[in-house]
């Protein structure tokens, strides 16, 4: 599996570290909203198809990336820096399909 890092170009997946589901939204650290924390920790879309994920190019530029990976085919349809806009197009795409 190759992931095309926006900085380094196409690299083998061995250079990357999976950092979890990219659909989660962490509540404010002072939040006492238990439902929000529960959703952050446990709720997952688990789609059979495009999935919004966070990866780190730990064996390269070390940037955190928003990756859309198809869980059935491993096809990577989008890679972008995680810094900045948290609501990527892919996220809505994933939610729309679920």
């Amino acid at each position: 599996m190759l992931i095309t890092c926006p900085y380094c170009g196409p690299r083998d997946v061995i250079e990357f570290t999976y950092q979890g589901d990219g659909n989660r939204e962490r509540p404010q650290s002072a939040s006492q909203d238990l439902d929000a924390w529960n959703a952050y920790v446990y709720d997952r879309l688990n789609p059979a198809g495009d999935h919004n994920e966070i990866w780190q190019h730990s064996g390269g530029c070390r940037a955190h990336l928003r990756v859309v990976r198809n869980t059935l085919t491993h096809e990577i349809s989008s890679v972008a820096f995680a810094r900045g806009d948290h609501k990527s197009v892919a996220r809505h795409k994933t939610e729309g399909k679920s």
Partner: protein
Amino acid sequence: MVERQSPLEPAPLEPELRTGSHGDFEHGVDVILSETRPGSILQLAAWPGQEKELISGIRTVTGLALPDGAGAGSTDGVKSVFGFAPGKFTVVDEAEGLASAFANVVTPDIGTVTDLSHGRTAIRIAGPKAEWVLAKFFAIDFALPAFPVGAGRSTMHHDVFAQIQRTGADQFDIYVFRSFARSFWKALCHASEEVGYEVQ
């Protein structure tokens, strides 16, 4: 500055850096391996939005202009610079004291300067088979059009993180963590045996 000792020849152990020709050199020496021992190896990082100021500061101190683009870099044979991550650059000088030269140029508003001179070992591989030997280590494209002279790449060989700069058409400088340098050097020597190599 504290005197540095090469990790490749730590007395009283058997030196790893055995100068001379090795491997299958009867048909010619196709790669030359050496440790360049630069006096200064720095990592510079710009805060988001301050990248242009940092690049301009690098030009002020080193005289090297960074071309546009990810991983772009340049070298004049004495000083070298290349981008290895968004807003981050490795700057190398044969002389010591480069960090203090940057102290007044890269202000806290622009970014940070980290002196890695004692933390990295610089290994040079040169010769007509340099690309070929490196391709056995790293899954990146070493062809000249994809990896132009001056450019840098961050990658790894198993868990040994490496920054590689092309400093000539058939010459690469590899920066590895000092603690991994001996094992990486030995692996590089083994990989070079079949093409014939010389250690300088």
